[in-house]
Structure formats: C-alpha cells, structure tokens
C-alpha cells in the first residue's frame, strides 16, 4: 500500500522524544465510520421527535397572497402547520452585514418567508408531522396563492435603472462594491509590449455534501433549554445565533455536532429552514427534525462563484508583468447570507488577484448585486478559484502571446523566496512563502520537459494533450480581521482543555470540529507529542458547546493551525502540572523530569521513574500522601489566536495534464500535481488527502458543475442526475509535494491546507485545455465549466 511520506518532523523544537508531529498516523475515529457506526445528525432519533417538511416557493419572486392550511392540518399524522407570520412571533429576522465591508447592505430575512418569496425554493410554510412522509404528504395539501413578481436574474442588468429593485427599502440592487487602484496602472499598460484582455466566467455551483444539511432541535420546556443536534462547522457561532434570534441566553442553548457528512463551507451559514426548525421546536415544545432532501439542497444550500470578471494583463517583451486590472461582477441571490455575508467572495477576488507576483500596478473593481436566485456565500476556497483562474489564465495567455514558456514567465515574476516579509499590491501581508521552490519542485516532479516533448510528438499524430499550471496563495489561520472586526460573533480563537484521567490517559476537549478533515487526529497528535503519551492514550472530544472550550470551529483552514496550536500548548501546560505532582511524589525537581511514552522519566537519561497511572492513582485517591498545601491540578486549558499576522498565507502550484478529444470535446484528465507549502506538516497523509479532495472539487468546477437557471429564475438541473459531480472513473491520480515554511506566529508553525486544491485546480485545468487547443487556433476557453459543447464551439466545430 502506498502510504505517504512518514518522515520525521522538520522542526527540532517540536522533535520531542516520541513526537507525532510530522507522522502519518491513522485517524482515531475511523473504525466507527468504516463500520457504519457513525452518528450523523440524519441518524438522530429522539423520543416524541416530529419531522418537518417545508412548502417552498415555486416562483423566483412572488407576493404570497394567501396560505390555506385547513386540509393540511387535518391530514393523518400532522402535528402543526405553521406560516411565516406565526413563526415570526418565536424568532426574529436577521440581516447579513459586516461593518468592515463598508457600505455592504442587505434586507431582513425571516425563517419562513412573510408576504414575499424572493427565490425559487424559499420556504413559505412548515408542516410538522409524525413522519417525514406524512409531513410531505400534507405539504401537498397546503394551498398557497402567489402573485408573481418580475424576477431579477441577470447580474449585468441588476443595476440598470429599468430593472426592478428587489428590496425597495435598500434603494437599489447593489449589495456591496469595492474599488482599488494601486501604483500607476494606466502608465504600466501604456508601456507594456503586450496587453491581453479577456472575460472570465465562473458558473454558479454548490457544495453537494454527501450528507445533506440536517438539524434536530429539542426545546425542553421544563429546563427552558434548547439542544440542537446540528451538522455544522461552527457550533459556538450557531449557539449565539439560535439564542439571539429566539430571544434567550446563550447558556440556554447547547449545540451538539458529532459526525458531519461533508461540509466544505456549506455548513457554516445560517439557513432559514434550519432556523425555522429550531423555532418550531420552541413553539411545539418537542424535538423537531429537518433533513434537506437532495432537491431541497440544490435550491437552498448556498451556491458559490457565479462571477463575471473582465480582466487585463500587461507584459513587457522580457516577460515582466507590468499591470493587472479586473472588473468583477457577481450576483448573490436576494439576501446577503447571515452572519458571514455574501460580500466576502468578491472582496477576496480583489485581494487575491495578482497575489503571487511582484507586479506593483493593480486596479480592481468588484460589484456584488442582488438577484432572485438562491443565495450565494462562502464555499471551500472562497474567492480563490476565481482570483487564481483570472490571474493564472492571464499569465498563460500573456506567455503565449509573447512566446515565453509559461513556467519561465512565472519564474520571472513570482515574488522571490528571499523577499519576505513583504506584501502584495492589494496589501496582503506575507510572512514567508516559497513560490520558486514550489515551482522547481513541481517542474521536476512532473518531468515537465519530458511531457512537453511527448506533447509535441503526439500532436503530429493528431492527439492533443495540454499542460497547464496555476501558482496560488491561500488564506489560512484567520485572525479576528476576517469577521470579528466586522462585528460578527465569530471567534477566531480556539481552545483546548486537556485532562489526565484516573488511569493516566488523556481526554481533550477542543473547540474545533471534525468534518472528516482529520481535526481529531491532528489535535490528538499535538497533545500526545507535547504532553508525552502514546497516541492511543488520547481521546478527543469535539462538537459540544456545553463542554468544549469556546472556539470558532472549522472554516478557512484554521483547525490544524489554530486548534492544533491550542492543543499543543494545553498539552505542554498539563505536562508542567503533572511534573509538579511527580516531583512531589518522587521528591525530585520538576525541571529534571519529563514525560515520555506515558511514563515520568529522568530528563537527562530517560530512566523510568513513575508510570502515569500510578501518578494518577496517588493524585486522585491518596492525595493525603502528598505534601501539605500541595494541590494537584490535572486539567489545563489553553487558547490560541493568531496575532502577528492577519492571516497565515500559504502558497503552492498545481499542474494539470490532460487530453482533449477534438472530435467530441471530451477532456480526459491524465494526471494532476500539486506542490504546496502549509508550513509545519502535522500529518502528511491528512494534508495530502485535503489537497486531493480539494483538487477534485476544483476539477468539478472546471469541467462539470453548474447550477443552470433560466431567465425566470428557475433552477433547471437541481438533482444529481442533471448536475454533474466528479466521479471516480473520470478523476486522475493526484501527486502531492511539499515545501515547508512554518509560520513563526505559533510554536507549531502550522498553516492551513484545506483550500489549496480547490483554489488552483480550475485554473490549471483551464490552462491545460487552452494549451492543448492552441495549435488548432481555438479561441481560449474562459467560461467555466468547460463542457464538451463549449470546447467544440471554441474549435469552431459547432
């Protein structure tokens, strides 16, 4: 079996005896999942639990004239039929704005539409019944009369004076706008030897988590407490939101998150139907369960991308990039999503374009507009796939235009590896990146020269293969600069509590959550290493706001870099406490002792002094034998938040090798490579699998995935038969490589790795397709996804 590199850690500071940092140990929680013994929210069943199904608007924009519920109320098994007006008495509406995105505006959104439905699929009425089937049956009996309103669907005309305004109170359909102008852009373009200008389009797509969104809300009237079993990435954020909009205190709300069947940013937002489910439980004083079905997921899970970017690059004959300019327009549905807002993706595009390069001249405009389609918000790699495709698409078009090899053009422009700390034209601060080393690594890993030679030979035989690249940067380990400063109660901090149990094992509670990425393993590795026990002596508990330290959860690739550091520090703190106990039992000096492999030893020579189970026995059951006044503290908590840098940027480069069938327009992916630098690697296998999974999600965006709407705002392909996702047969093997530039902000030095794959894959696939078709004189393809018909059109064959 191929097991990825199991090399020892790179940092001597972390290289404690029996350190697990840098080792590909298997995740501790996997057997449960391979045996079908997981606990997903969709599996939860509680006594007296009822099921809710929602009646959803068939129109993109309509006034709700009347809702007749009598027939539904009398149907078999029905417990309640609840309209938006009724539910509004239990739960207040919300507005998705952040103060640091200046000018960003949105309208109040309610758990169930009141008076007006603003997208096809918005819930307008809830039916609660004994079973989901009965609830769905009764939904058919709810009669809603609508007065259809004109639907705003095309972002290009959303700001026209003639286009209706979706929310009259806002004055226009503009949610957010940002402009940036750095350096001397006009001069740089004027002086460039070549200018390439094109328009990139990114189809709307969505997360398609294998387990749909799920929630079970249980209001206990006797305790006045709400327990929410929730497939979420951010339990503490949700605790705050449920409490706030139910008008109760946070301590009255407990959010429990066990296994989550995939999230990728889909499950970190406020969804009206989930909020409604929580409100219904309060109203009905019993547990209520909602699991979105696949059709509902397509019309309500947040969508992402849907950007149109006009873009321009200037380059001189010697290959120096002189300027970048972009104009981004994106439609985000009728509401900015709460509480992270729908302005972040466009804002990120502005931040990230040109990011790997030393070009000082950059102008950008981004406009975010409302429309009557499903809401858009942050999905894996937020903004990165767009910014990277725009930047790298321009770079390769420019290289072709001036006749320089695309890797060579990058070598001439990427920020030098010894130039750090530095910053991008847009003002992003970089602590330490490794673009050139990563590029060199990729070059040799994929045998670039060999592939080019083969490409040439095959072209003569009418076989068209392409090689495409994408250098990228990735935002990870966000500080409060992301959301906190904008007034959102989304913490950037995370904590870990570590305790020694009575047999010498370690129990860890952490604020980060497990979405399958391996957070539990990483936390366990950090604690096992810094405290000094074998990995199988560590149990990690996540996802319980009653018991875990306050924390942000899992998003923006923060679990390892932030949660891992908190765990590392907590383990160290507990080691100090335990050594104090050991010293008093052994009548030794704490600084002369250490804990290795679960045994207190002499630091100098490793001589075994006291097993931890014996220490625990004395501390817990015979504390009377310890010196008077000495109190053993066998539990320690530490928190961590990045302070020195707003974000820990990572970098990398991807390469795609593919073959285009010029008769059918089909793309066959042959191989994909990614070299990335996420700082200290805690678990190489987990990092590689984050990259591979991310790459395939990015490939989906490049080749298959598209939420197709008609001009009336109707989603045309909202099921898995018509919306294509990457499946095993079409995907390539993916080779990963690494460069290691740790962040000095934490002792561990780990940065995030969750979005790199998704950030760079679409660009590299796009560039490879264009590389394959270039000798045929095809129009460069810049409109994702690159379906066979688009490819044939570019070739002038249809």
């Amino acid at each position, binding site marked *: 079996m191929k097991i990825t590199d199991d090399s020892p850690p790179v940092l001597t500071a972390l290289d404690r005896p029996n350190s697990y940092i840098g080792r590909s140990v298997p995740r501790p929680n996997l057997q449960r999942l391979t045996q079908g013994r997981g606990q*997903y929210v969709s*599996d939860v069943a509680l006594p007296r639990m009822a099921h809710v199904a929602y009646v959803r608007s068939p129109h993109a924009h309509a006034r709700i004239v009347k809702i007749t519920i009598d027939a539904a109320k009398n149907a078999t098994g029905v417990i309640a039929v609840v309209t938006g007006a009724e539910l509004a008495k239990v739960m207040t509406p919300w507005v998705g704005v952040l103060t640091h995105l200046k000018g960003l505006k949105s309208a109040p959104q309610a758990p169930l539409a009141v008076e007006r439905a603003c997208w096809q699929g918005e819930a307008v009425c809830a039916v609660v019944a004994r079973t989901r089937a009965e609830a769905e049956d009764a939904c058919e009996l709810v009669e809603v009369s609508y007065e259809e309103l004109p639907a705003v669907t095309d972002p290009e005309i959303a700001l026209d004076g003639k286009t209706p305004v979706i929310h009259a109170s806002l004055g226009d359909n503009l949610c957010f706008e940002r402009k940036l102008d750095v350096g001397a852009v006009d001069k740089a373009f004027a002086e460039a030897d070549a200018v390439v200008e094109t328009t990139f389009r990114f189809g709307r797509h969505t997360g398609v988590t*294998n387990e749909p969104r799920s929630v079970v809300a249980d209001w206990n009237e006797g305790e006045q407490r709400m327990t929410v079993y929730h497939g979420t990435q951010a339990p503490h954020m949700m605790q705050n939101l449920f409490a706030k909009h139910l008008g109760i205190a946070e301590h009255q709300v407990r959010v429990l998150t066990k296994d989550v*069947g995939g*999230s990728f940013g889909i499950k970190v937002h406020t969804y009206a139907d989930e909020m409604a489910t929580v409100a219904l439980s309060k109203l009905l004083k019993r547990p209520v369960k909602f699991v979105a079905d696949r059709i509902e997921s397509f019309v309500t899970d947040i969508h992402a991308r849907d950007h149109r970017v006009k873009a321009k690059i200037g380059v001189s004959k010697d290959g120096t990039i002189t300027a970048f300019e972009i104009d981004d327009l994106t439609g985000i549905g009728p509401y900015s999503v709460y509480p992270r807002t729908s302005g972040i993706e466009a804002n990120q595009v502005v931040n990230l374009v040109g990011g790997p390069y030393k070009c000082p001249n950059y102008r950008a405009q981004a406009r975010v507009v409302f429309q009557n389609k499903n809401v858009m918000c942050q999905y894996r790699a937020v903004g990165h796939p767009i910014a990277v495709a725009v930047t790298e698409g321009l770079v390769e078009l420019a290289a072709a235009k001036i006749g320089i090899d695309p890797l060579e053009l990058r070598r001439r422009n990427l920020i030098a590896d010894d130039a750090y700390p530095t910053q991008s034209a847009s003002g992003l601060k970089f602590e330490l990146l490794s673009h050139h080393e990563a590029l060199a690594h990729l070059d040799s890993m994929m045998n670039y020269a060999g592939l080019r030679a083969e490409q040439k030979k095959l072209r003569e035989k009418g076989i068209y293969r392409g090689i495409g690249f994408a250098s990228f940067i990735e935002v990870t380990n966000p500080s409060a600069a992301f959301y906190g400063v904008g007034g959102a109660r989304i913490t950037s901090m995370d904590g870990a509590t570590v305790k020694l149990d009575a047999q010498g094992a370690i129990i860890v509670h952490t604020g980060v959550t497990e979405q399958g990425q391996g957070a539990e393993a990483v936390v366990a590795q950090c604690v096992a290493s810094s405290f000094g026990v074998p990995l199988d002596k560590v149990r990690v508990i996540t996802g319980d706001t009653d018991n875990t330290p306050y924390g942000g959860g899992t998003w923006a690739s923060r679990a390892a870099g932030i949660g891992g550091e908190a765990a590392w520090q907590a383990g160290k703190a507990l080691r100090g406490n335990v050594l104090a106990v050991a010293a008093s039992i052994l009548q030794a000096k704490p600084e002369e002792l250490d804990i290795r492999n679960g045994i207190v030893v002499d630091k100098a020579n490793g001589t075994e002094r006291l097993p931890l189970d014996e220490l625990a026995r004395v501390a817990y059951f015979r504390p009377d034998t310890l010196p008077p006044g000495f109190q053993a503290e066998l539990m320690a908590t530490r928190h961590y938040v990045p302070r020195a840098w707003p974000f820990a940027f990572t970098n990398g480069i991807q390469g795609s090798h593919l073959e285009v069938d010029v008769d059918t327009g089909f793309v066959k992916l042959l191989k994909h490579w990614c070299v990335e630098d996420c700082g200290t690697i805690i678990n190489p296998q987990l990092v590689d699998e984050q990259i591979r999974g991310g790459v395939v999600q990015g490939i989906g965006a490049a080749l298959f995935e598209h939420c197709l709407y008609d001009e009336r705002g109707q989603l045309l392909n909202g*099921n898995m038969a018509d919306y294509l996702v990457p499946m095993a047969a079409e995907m390539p093997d993916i080779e990963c490589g690494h460069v290691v530039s740790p962040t000095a902000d934490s002792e561990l030095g780990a940065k995030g790795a969750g979005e790199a794959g998704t950030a760079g894959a679409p660009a590299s696939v796009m560039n490879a397709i264009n590389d394959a078709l270039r000798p045929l004189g095809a129009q460069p393809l810049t409109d994702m996804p690159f379906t066979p018909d688009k490819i044939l059109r570019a070739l002038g064959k249809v």
Partner: protein
Amino acid sequence: MTDSAFDISLTVNGERVRERVDARKTLVDFLREDLALTGSHVGCEHGVCGACTVRVNGEIVRGCLMLAVQCDGAKVETIEGMSDSGEVADLQAAFEQRNALQCGYCTPGMIAAAQDLLRRGGVPSRDEIREHLSGNYCRCTGYHAIIDAVEAVAQARAGGR
C-alpha cells in the same frame, strides 16, 4: 396515498425480521427507520450517489431505488452485517490506514461496492477499480486514496495472505 401497507418478512444480516411497511417505503428508509440500521446512508434518493448501497440476495443494489416490499423473502446484508461477520475487515483496515475516507458518509456504500468487485477474484487495474466504483459519489477524498486502498486489498487477497 399511504393506506397500502404490506407485511413483509425477510432476513437482515442473518436475523429474521417481520414488519408492516408502506408500499412506497424504500429499502434504505426501511433499514434506517424501521430497523435503526443507520450505517446505510441516503445521499440523493434517486439512484446516483451510491451512499445507500446494500446487498440483496448477494447482489449490490441501491437501497433508494428498491422498495422494502420488494424484499419480501429476501436476504439483505448491510454494512453492519458485513462488519460484524468480518467479511470486509481487510477493506475497512485498508480504508483506515490509507485515510480513504474523510467524512465517512460514502464509506459503507463504497466498501459494499468494492467488496462486490473484489469477490470476483483477481487483481483489477486502477482503471477497473475506478470504473466499478463510478456509481459511488465521494465529495471528500478525490477518490485517489479509495482506489489505493481497494488496490492494496486486491493484491493482498490475491497474494493469499
């Protein structure tokens, strides 16, 4: 439309079961809701994702495309049964070693489908493994690790370990 219920009796993971079910109830809903066998998952309910893959009379089927009433008299095996019998222990171990699962939601179906391939004997190529698993959606892994794990088990079984 819910009035037509039928008595069915079948064997599930070796246990005799008799239940009354709605005619419209799918096999996977029956397993999950009536028998609390929640190891079989529901991802799409329209036959595309393979999360509901179980074995009926020795053949793998999509539990969302088969009705519970169609299983009257049948022998049904789910991941719970395959785990407890030890039949797929080597596949499970390989998935765990190779981190061929992240969220794990696709895994029971993936293991059932992989076992279906490996039971035919021989060592399939990576392309054949990809082809055989092409009806099982995994959003997390990108498939590479899953193919590695299945390939490793195929080789180990062929080597007569």
